[in-house]
């Protein structure tokens, strides 16, 4: 939702200098800090010692447990001591923590992110030439800890040198200190901005002084790095040599601009590097404001230690190899870095997923189509929009209500003049298998007559100023306060607001949306909390800023989980997020605009989120601000129908844009796009199930499936859905042709609409019209679909399945199908699910499953389409158990298409189809 509403916008214009009175474009960048205006970033960017003063005392090594080594470390310039912990983790991962040995104030270590305490694996260490400690762990992982100056090198597959820490000597740990240093200690650099910092009209009092940490992490032999969302920028991260660094600081950016490294609503301080040999990742668990500089360098191998020199895998020894150096700076906290050594993309996804968690399987309707608007005005409006979908025969699963549904932006209430009977409304919508979502923002209106406020106020549940008074700011409802979710008691209390008893008018058919949770504070510095406001545990917002939004949506998730007694899967959408948000929430890319450039930008933004674990993601269809023309809207529907979270949403000042308002032709095109989405729901659902288990995102960059195809490394106009579909959405007006790179070695790609095959390793020139959504199924995959139409996904659960078998050059293919009741936790608790594996080989298609799971369904196999089958067979038979049937088949020479009519077996049985 947009930041400023009319009246507020106007009144605030006096305080904020907006870039344009005419309200045409773009953010006012001056509302947000540049690196130069953020003193710790300025200090760290300037920090370039000749020799790093940090040194690790290898003789201090203690083995705490097998897999956990502890060292002392010192800044030789000021003799400040640190503790360095190395943890060798399962699945080729390593964790390194560096903290002050005796800080005058405990430094914050981020909570609420890690799934569990990561599992250790044993490590074998040996000292090499006195200055280096080598450690071997897992099957093929290795690290080298260099004592003086401090450095950590990491190797995967035994010998491939993939990461190096502090090789650029930028490690800089600002220890907590007293302001008047009587101990003769000299500050590392100037005192500039260390004890107070003013930005615009706001002064950050910094009572604890400087506390930042900077570190460099290099990726030798890599040319492409990805991740560190959220930025409206390219998927491949750019060199920041001539720009500001990429920033992490969760903020509400009004009409955000694209193609720049400014901070947005959420942060995942996790970067991935990929080349032909390996995929690796580095994650720094830190919730403070952060910045990352990226530089593309050359690494001179002559200067490397001899032990490293020969570790560029099989590539010939060169004097120079490419290298990417990333320079990370956080304002406070500790260094808590996780290094994922891959070596495959899937390994890296899994390694990161084990640490921060995966997206739990959403209820199936959440993967279907959502209809939202700021605002559907009243119960009649909702009824009419629902009727519009019925009348126009467009499938739809969820209707959304934005802030205007509440009584004066008091969340957990209803504007009863417009929504006199919300329970009935939800029930009526539920009759069509549909759900509803209401919004619940974190700002609590300051109004003694508002129960939520009055209770929280009396319990002292709000975030406080440093003098202990309640912090008060402005948001939608006017003067507001913010709950301090860091306090577990408050977290639980907030969760409890979502119980049926507390949230009057809510039913089991209602789900939630947390917006403005960066949090957005209209009159705060950079439109958010001042950094010196105080949270539970004597923490400053400075330490915890980037997890605030996540804590809210975690509590919301818990509330929904608890209200059903843990039976039903919750659904929550959030705007603000942090590493680990995927465990409890879907994420959307916030307030985009109805521009072709924003449609195009959605792909790199969603890919950046997906590869960093935030996998249930989408962008507002049509663009939030301003009015899309029919063409843009249609193209947006088509693109989003192949992106994970599929929701239409629009600003209150825009014209209505329900799918049927743009003429019959466009209604038909939009209907087709939505129907296509529904037809692939069995595939999406299967991918999300696999995602929960294996952490491989549903939406992927091409290189995740074709890691050796260097052509794919910079592609951000195409993406994969699972390993079976390549999608190239059309994101330009008036195009009649698009160039699409089809990756892979000896791979065939079949147009999903025409079944026309294309060969791989080429850029295909494809003719397109308004109906076209260029999507290709990879030869060698089997994709389950539902080609029947239904009003909503929940009404299609028992409908039959069509299997689309796309053969590869060896006439083979494989695929999976996951199925369950679509909404409960029975799949986890009682193994109530079907997980089928299909294998086509030697003219036989087999369906097999894991007998430990069980789910009753009347769904059956309605149709099998085999694409690329060489000739018309004589006979097709299907055997399931003791029965054998001879289903009819048809063959189309030109497309080499074999269609088996009504093969008939239940989805839940084993069967074998034989073609002879």
């Amino acid at each position, binding site marked *: 939702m947009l930041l400023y509403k*009319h009246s507020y916008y*106007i009144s605030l214009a006096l305080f904020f200098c907006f870039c344009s009175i005419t*309200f045409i474009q773009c953010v006012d960048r001056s509302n947000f800090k540049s690196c130069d205006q953020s003193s710790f970033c300025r200090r760290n960017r300037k920090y370039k010692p000749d020799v790093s003063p940090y040194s690790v005392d290898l003789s201090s090594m203690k083995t705490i447990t097998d897999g956990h080594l502890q060292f002392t470390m010192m800044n030789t310039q000021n003799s400040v001591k640190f503790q360095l912990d190395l943890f060798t983790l399962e699945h080729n991962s390593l964790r390194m923590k560096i903290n002050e040995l005796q800080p005058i104030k405990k430094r914050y270590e981020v909570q609420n992110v890690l799934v569990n305490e990561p599992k250790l694996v044993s490590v074998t260490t040996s000292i090499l030439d006195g200055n280096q400690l080598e450690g071997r762990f897992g099957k093929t992982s290795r690290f080298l800890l260099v004592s003086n100056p401090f450095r950590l090198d990491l190797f995967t597959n035994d010998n491939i040198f993939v990461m190096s820490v502090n090789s650029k000597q930028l490690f800089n740990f600002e220890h907590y200190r007293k302001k008047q240093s009587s101990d003769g200690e000299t500050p590392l650099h100037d005192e500039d901005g260390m004890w107070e910092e003013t930005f615009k009209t706001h002064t950050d009092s910094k009572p604890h002084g400087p506390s930042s940490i900077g570190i460099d992490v290099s990726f030798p032999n890599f040319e492409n790095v990805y991740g560190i969302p959220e930025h409206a920028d390219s998927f491949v991260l750019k060199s920041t040599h001539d720009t500001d660094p990429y920033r992490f600081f969760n903020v509400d950016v009004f009409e955000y601009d694209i193609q720049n490294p400014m901070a947005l609503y959420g942060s995942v301080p996790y970067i991935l590097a990929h080349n032909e040999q390996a995929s690796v990742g580095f994650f720094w668990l830190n919730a403070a404001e952060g910045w990352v500089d990226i530089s593309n360098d050359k690494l001179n191998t002559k200067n490397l230690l001899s032990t490293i020199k020969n570790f560029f895998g099989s590539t010939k020894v060169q004097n120079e190899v490419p290298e990417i150096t990333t320079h990370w700076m956080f304002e406070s906290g500790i260094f808590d870095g996780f290094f994922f050594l891959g070596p495959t993309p899937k390994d890296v996804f899994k390694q990161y997923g084990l640490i921060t968690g995966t997206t739990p399987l959403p209820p199936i309707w959440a993967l279907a189509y959502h209809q939202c608007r700021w605002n559907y*005005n*009243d119960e*009649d*409006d909702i009824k009419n929009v629902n009727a519009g979908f019925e009348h126009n*025969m467009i499938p739809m699963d969820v209707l959304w209500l934005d802030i205007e549904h509440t009584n004066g932006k008091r969340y957990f209430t209803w504007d009863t*003049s417009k929504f006199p009977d919300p329970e009935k409304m939800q029930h009526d919508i539920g*009759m*069509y*298998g549909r759900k509803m979502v209401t919004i619940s923002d974190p700002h609590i209106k300051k109004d003694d007559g508002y129960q939520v406020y009055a209770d929280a106020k009396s319990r002292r549940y709000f975030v406080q100023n440093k003098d202990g008074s309640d912090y008060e700011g402005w948001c939608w409802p006017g003067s507001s306060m913010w709950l301090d979710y860091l306090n577990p008691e408050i977290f639980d209390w907030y969760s409890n607001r979502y119980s049926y008893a507390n949230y009057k008018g809510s039913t089991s058919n209602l789900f939630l949306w947390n917006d403005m949770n960066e949090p957005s504070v209209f009159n705060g510095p950079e439109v958010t909390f001042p950094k010196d406001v105080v949270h539970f545990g004597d923490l400053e917002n400075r330490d915890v800023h980037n997890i605030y939004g996540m804590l809210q949506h975690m509590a919301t998730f818990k509330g929904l989980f608890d209200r059903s007694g843990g039976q039903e899967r919750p659904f929550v959408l959030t705007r603000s997020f942090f590493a680990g948000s995927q465990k409890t929430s879907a994420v959307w890319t916030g307030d985009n605009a109805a521009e072709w450039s924003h449609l195009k930008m959605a792909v790199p933004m969603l890919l950046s989120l997906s590869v960093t674990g935030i996998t249930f993601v989408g962008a507002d269809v049509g663009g939030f601000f301003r009015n899309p023309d029919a063409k843009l809207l249609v193209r947006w529907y088509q693109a989003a129908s192949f992106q994970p979270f599929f929701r239409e949403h629009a600003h*209150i*000042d*825009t*014209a*209505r844009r329900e799918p049927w308002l743009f003429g019959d032709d466009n209604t038909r095109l939009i209907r*087709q796009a939505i*129907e*296509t989405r529904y*037809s692939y729901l069995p595939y999406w659902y299967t991918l999300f199930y696999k995602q929960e288990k294996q952490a491989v995102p549903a939406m992927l960059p091409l290189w995740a499936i074709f890691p050796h195809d260097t052509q794919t490394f910079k592609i951000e106009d195409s993406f994969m859905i699972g390993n079976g579909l390549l999608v190239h959405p059309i994101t330009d007006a008036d195009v009649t042709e698009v160039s699409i790179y089809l990756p892979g070695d000896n791979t065939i790609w079949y147009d*999903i*609409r*025409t*079944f026309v095959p294309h060969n791989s390793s080429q850029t295909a020139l494809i003719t397109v019209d308004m*109906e076209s959504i260029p999507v290709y199924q990879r030869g060698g995959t089997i994709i389950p679909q539902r*080609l*029947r*139409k*239904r*009003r909503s996904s929940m*009404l*299609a659960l028992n*409908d*039959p399945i069509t299997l689309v078998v796309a053969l590869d050059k060896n006439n083979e293919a494989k695929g999976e199908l996951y199925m369950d009741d679509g909404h409960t936790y029975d799949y986890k608790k009682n193994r109530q699910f079907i997980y089928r594996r299909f294998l086509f080989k030697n003219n036989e298609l087999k369906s097999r499953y894991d007998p430990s799971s069980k789910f009753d369904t009347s769904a059956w196999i*309605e*149709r099998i*389409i085999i694409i690329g089958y060489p000739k018309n067979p004589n006979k097709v038979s299907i055997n399931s158990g003791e029965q054998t049937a*001879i289903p*009819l*088949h*048809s*063959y*189309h020479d030109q497309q080499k*298409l074999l*269609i088996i*009519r*009504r093969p008939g077996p239940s989805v839940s049985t084993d069967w074998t189809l034989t073609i002879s």
Partner: protein
Amino acid sequence: MFVRSIALILLLFIHDAFCHNNKNILRGIQSSLLSMYIPSKPFTCLDGTISIPFEFVNDDYCDCRDGSDEPGTSACPNGQFFCENKGYVGITIPSHFVGDGVCDCCDGSDEYENEIICNNTCFELAKKTNEERERRRLLHEQGVAKKNEMIAKAGSIRIERKNRLEELEEQLKRLETDLNEKEELKRQAEEPETAHKDKHQKAWEEERAIRELARRDEQMQDMFNDLDTNQDKLVSIKELQVHTELDNDKENDFTDEEVKTILGADSVTLDEFNSTVFEQISNSYQKITQSVTNEQVSTTESNKATPEPSTEEDHGISDEEKREHSVDDDAHDKNDMDDNLDDIDTKDDIDQPTSLDHTKHVHDDTAPDFDDETKKFIQIADQARNDFKDAEKKVRDVKKEIEDLQKRAEMNLGEHDEFSIMYDQCYDYEEREYTYRVCMFKSAVQIPKGGGSEVTIGYWESWGSEPNKYSVMKYTNGVSCWNGPSRSLTIHLRCGIENRAIDVREPTKCEYAMIFETPAVCDENIGAKLSHQDTHTEF
């Protein structure tokens, strides 16, 4: 699209007997199409594209591109399922509604296989529908009665208007004659008035000329005496030479020669001074006085003095004051106009010295009041002018009324003028925050209840479009929205027995929608229409 390309190749399905459950094979087929589904013959898809074995009909697999082989199952995305709905009316629904757990047919026939039980609600529905029809019929009947009254009233309004128009035309003629007469009377009254005023003015000008002359004479005499310092009744070169201000070229001294050029002789008498010298020097001449202050004053005066002191001039008024003066005049004029809108012809008064002039003039050059006789003529003329203005106003008023009536007569106020009585009438709708007021065929406003100024949300624009032109009114071009379009209102008219707004909404920001009940849209043919209705889609 996808399914279509599959359907295309289904032609090629080959041989082999195919068995399936024959039960309810004809499910979901419209009675009018039953003849197309003959179990003993192959079935040809209704679009004529392909023929399939009859066993393929309703076998839960889509073969026909048009979905016609599966009217009774959900296999085709584009099929039509027919609910018989005994006791009510049969309807067709999309076949993908079949077996989806939603009871779409009142006889429950669309959910034949499903676990959920659909109660047969056809009887109740029929009852409800009949009641609803009856209610509507009654409403429309009552409404039509009112509508007829409205039409009748429109007729009498039309007649009244016609009569009134005629009356007004008559009146206009009379008034125009009267106006002409009044104009003549005015002219006649103004003639003597002008004559007397001119005479008065002329006398005054003559008087002023005489005064001017005397003043000059006096000045000349004074100057002569002044110059004649030795009082020998002659002004000599010496006597004049001290007045160096009279030296035209200031380069050198005021020489005898130069002085003599002015005097024309070595000395001059009063008469000679009068005839040849005075005019030459009067502009530059400065009286020699004792007091410095006086000298300065006189210097200032003489410097600024105009060549003709006798003419009316704004001596000593700075530019600033002049501007203020003129502004004051304007304001004055405006006040005058406010006092008497028609009194535009104020030329006569403009030449009159203003009170401000009086105070600024050293000499009393004010014209004397008109004499009683002139005043009398002015009074008479004023009366005539006022009479004329009154007459003019009456003509204007009548013309305006005629114009309004003609405009209204030309206005499209419904097929039978049924909206005629609503013309110009205002109707309010009270909502929680606002009162919405629409003044029919004029404009609509939104009035905040908590105070604050009202906002125009649209001016009458047009009726809706055919075929239901008179069921929609459009008001557009209201006050522009912040960051949006100008406000507009669409009124959806609905049959009701009185004229009233029953709902206002804002579905899109600044685009308002009102539901308005009026007998004017009640349908006289409703009875016939309702009884011919086959479906209940109206509800």
